[in-house]
């Protein structure tokens, strides 16, 4: 550190310069990212009100277990969205992984580990391609991943003739289906719950690491990020890889939970994006917390479950979901607005365009 400034007592200054934990927590709850937790609690309460048995530890833990795949997908999608991009290829990746497991593992337990590795490599590779095409070839990620979505699914269906051989060895399916039996209160802790916890913890940790902070900064203002020496292309590419890897994990869980079928993973990208947005993460990047994204996924699932229990005609479910999304996001938007009431330039939506582009021309970063 330069001798230019040598403050008398650093730690002391630190104290006075940082708001207390409690205050920061309250401040957080008032942002959309915090509000989603409140929404989640409300929904769960409603479900239990309608159907008390849902509140029992066992069925509750099972609920968490079955929500794990979409929550993990949402966490993956979060990395991409917070960096200002989209990943529409997620659903296709899930499907691909499910089919891969079905066709390559078969009943052969010995194949489980190698195929598992292969799946992760595949996932990472797809993310890499999405990322590189987006950052280096400067194709909007919406388009890149849309193309990937079409191409990937087409390839898988072509390869399998539309239907997988069958379910893979049970040892593999256990990952998504089984759990630790004989736990006191809960009776069972499904593996998906444990995996979700691990993934969430990892993501949370990652977002507090320099990488995570830089990722958000890059989503907020790529130009500035690049000028502070961040390799924006590689940072975003890694976000895409994380997204595909998350999709891979949900794929693995789904093979266990649902079994192998070409329709597994259909529409996952939109569900995941919806969840992330419900979690108060701003499309366009630069704002939002990873755990809120996961919470968003749970809120969405709880909503469906609630509708189920209330006995809403299943064809109406789409409509309710649609309405909820709009309302939730509108509310979030209001909050951000109130937060910066009177600002002429809500900067995360627009930055002075030509300046942005000038420097885009100086250094190869894509300004949104």
């Amino acid at each position, binding site marked *: 550190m330069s001798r230019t400034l040598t403050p008398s007592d650093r730690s002391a200054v630190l104290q006075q310069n940082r708001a207390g934990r409690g205050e920061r927590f309250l401040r957080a709850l008032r942002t959309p990212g915090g509000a989603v937790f409140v929404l989640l609690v409300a929904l769960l309460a409603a479900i239990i009100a309608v159907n008390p048995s849902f509140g029992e530890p066992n069925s509750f833990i099972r609920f968490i277990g079955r929500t794990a795949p979409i929550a993990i997908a949402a966490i993956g999608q979060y990395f991409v969205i917070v960096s200002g991009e989209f990943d*529409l290829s997620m659903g296709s990746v899930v499907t691909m992984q499910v089919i891969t497991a079905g066709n390559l593992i078969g009943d052969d337990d010995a194949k489980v580990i190698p195929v598992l590795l292969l799946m992760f490599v595949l996932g990472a590779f797809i993310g890499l391609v999405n990322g590189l*095409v987006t950052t280096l*070839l*400067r*194709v*909007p990620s*919406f*388009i*890149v991943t*849309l*193309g*990937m*979505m*079409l*191409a*990937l*699914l*087409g*390839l898988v*269906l*072509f390869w399998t003739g*539309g239907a997988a051989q069958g379910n893979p060895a049970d040892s593999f399916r256990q990952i998504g289906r089984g759990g630790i039996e004989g736990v006191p209160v809960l009776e069972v802790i499904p593996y998906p719950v444990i995996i979700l916890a691990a993934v969430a913890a990892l993501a949370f940790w990652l977002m507090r690491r320099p990488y995570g902070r830089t990722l958000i900064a890059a989503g907020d203002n790529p130009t500035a990020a690049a000028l502070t020496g961040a390799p924006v292309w590689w940072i975003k590419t890694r976000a895409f890889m994380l997204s595909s890897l998350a999709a891979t994990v949900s794929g693995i869980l789904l093979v266990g939970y649902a079994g192998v079928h070409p329709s597994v993973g259909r529409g996952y990208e*939109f569900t995941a*994006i*919806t969840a992330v*947005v419900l979690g108060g993460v701003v*499309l*366009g990047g630069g704002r939002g917390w990873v755990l809120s994204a996961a919470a968003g996924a749970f809120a969405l699932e709880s909503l469906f479950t609630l509708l189920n229990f209330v006995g809403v*005609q299943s*064809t*109406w*479910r*789409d*409509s*309710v*979901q*649609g*309405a*909820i*999304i*709009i309302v939730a*996001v*509108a509310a979030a*938007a*209001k909050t951000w*607005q109130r937060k910066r009431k009177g600002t*002429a*330039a809500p900067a995360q*939506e*627009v930055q*002075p*365009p*030509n300046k942005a*582009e*000038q420097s*885009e*021309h100086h250094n190869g970063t894509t300004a*949104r």
Partner: protein
Amino acid sequence: MNKTRGDGSIFSRLSSTHIVYLVALLTLAVGSVLVATAGRSFFSPGNISSILTGTSVLGFIAIGQTLVILIGSLDLSVPYVTSLASLIAAGVMANNSANVLAGVLLALGVSALIGLFNGLIVSGLKVHGFIATLGMGLIISGYLATNFKGSFGQTPFSFRLVGATGLGPVPISTLIMLACAGLAMLLLHRTRVGHQIYAVGGNPNVARMSGIRIQTPVITAHVICSVMAGMAGLLLASRLGVGSPTVGSQGGYDLLSIAAVVLGGTLLAGGKGSITGTLGGVLIFAMMDNIMSVMQVNPFLKDVVRGIVIVVAVAVYARRRIVNRPLRFGHDGHSRQEMPGTEEAREVRA
């Protein structure tokens, strides 16, 4: 559009619109060869009309989508609007040519209303277009699934003719679509709201500071987009002879139209793009489909090709350097001709 070229600068390369049509030309060339190998003629009236037919439905929707994307939003609700419109039209007409006008007006009216809601949600509630229209789409799809079991209503013969007849190889529907495109261009380039659409898409704050009320253009764009989707619905109703709750989603027109628009060189971020380009994009898709069908490509592989073409094509435009500054010196360091920019800068000082 593309005023950037307007300033006669020697450095600005081909506009993306040009490239779109180069790509289209390429597709045409490759197509005619491939089709010939399959023992067919690419340019036979039958084939041309089948290609053009392929353009009209997507064309309508893509035109609307262009406006919405130009203003920096998106519309994912189009497929459902299309279905709804087809149902309303067929339902109201009920195989009676007297009701044609009523059917058309009602269908378009309802579509416009949906567009209005989209616009209000986006501009008023400040909900990202992606979410707003995703939600709206879900709401409508729920309504359709609940209230319509299978095809419904019937369009009278007179109305079916629209989808069936054509001038030579050119279907009436395509002509109508082109007419709409013409109107959209007029709107964009020769009316205030058109300029405002570009302005707001380019930078909402600047637009606001310049005294534009953001709502107006946003809502206009969304309304027009939905109406166009409605037009597509009408065309489908006329081609199918009935309304169907699934025609829209069958075509996957939401993502496809967005792809077509971007393929047409319009900036997904908004503020820059053209209808002409979009038409090019739609044409490319139509030709690709036609070629692959003639070649009897495996249906699953068709999507693979589509996906790759979209990305590759867009990558091609993206490669072009954003000409925003005149080069002063070549690589050899010999000073280059200067662009008006710097030269004028000097005169201003005088």
